[in-house]
């Protein structure tokens, strides 16, 4: 994600090991920058993930929240 919109950081399929490995590496780099992985689970639900799930349709990286 950048300051002007959204960026697709990685794309993979469950069968493509090389693409998934690239995605896992990118996911780790973003976590190191402070982003948090979240998988939308349908209406009104989401799951926080520490590891990139191979079978997820989409993983959104979000910034941490804090009380204002």
């Amino acid at each position, binding site marked *: *994600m*950048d*300051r*002007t*919109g*959204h960026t697709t950081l990685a794309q993979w399929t469950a069968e493509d090991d090389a693409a998934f490995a690239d995605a896992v590496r990118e996911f780790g780099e973003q976590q190191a920058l*402070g982003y*948090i992985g*979240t*998988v*939308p*689970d349908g*209406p*009104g*639900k*989401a*799951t*926080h*993930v*520490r*590891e990139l*799930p191979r*079978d*997820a349709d989409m993983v*959104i990286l*979000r*910034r*941490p*929240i*804090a*009380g*204002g």
Partner: protein
Amino acid sequence: MAQAEALPELATVPWRQPTDARWLRRWGRIWHAWTLLYTVPFIAAAVGMFLLDPLATPVALAALAHAWIIPELYAFRGASVVRPKARGSAQGEPVAQGLLGDLLGHDERELQRRTGLALQRGELGIWLVGQGGALLVTPERRRVHCFCVAASDAELPPSDRIAHLLLALRSDEVGFATVANHAFAGAAWRVRRRLPLPMRPALDAARRAAE
């Protein structure tokens, strides 16, 4: 799919008790008692002064004004958590609206575009999420809890700020409320009066949804 976990931001507030339904009920009662504590003495003083000496009527009126203004100021503080913040990148807003729209159902998307607040049903009640805070309408409809909470990147476009809060809320509702700073709890009508006009239909919708 990896196993669901608690909100990682909870590690930044280890001293806080979980903000669950019991916590909310307790703090709702505390705020109610606090409101009475700083309102009733002013009213009693006003009545007493008037009865003792009608010449003290101006002072009595000033006391009554205090009894009215102080709760209004607290309600204003609570409602201010969802007021739009004049910060963040406007350049990415159209794209950010797309992501936020994808996260919301049709009715919630329309409501968010009209009012700036995203409605989210939860176990604790009905949430209205704004750019820098959230309102929670508890199931009994009488009380609104106001939380100050924001995504840590101030440069995010407004809709991204809402989307990031929404994702955190959906991941762990109690964790979200625990990380957020509780700013106010009070009657829905008091908070509504202090909301910007375009946001009031969102609170009305949340109260209907909480029925």
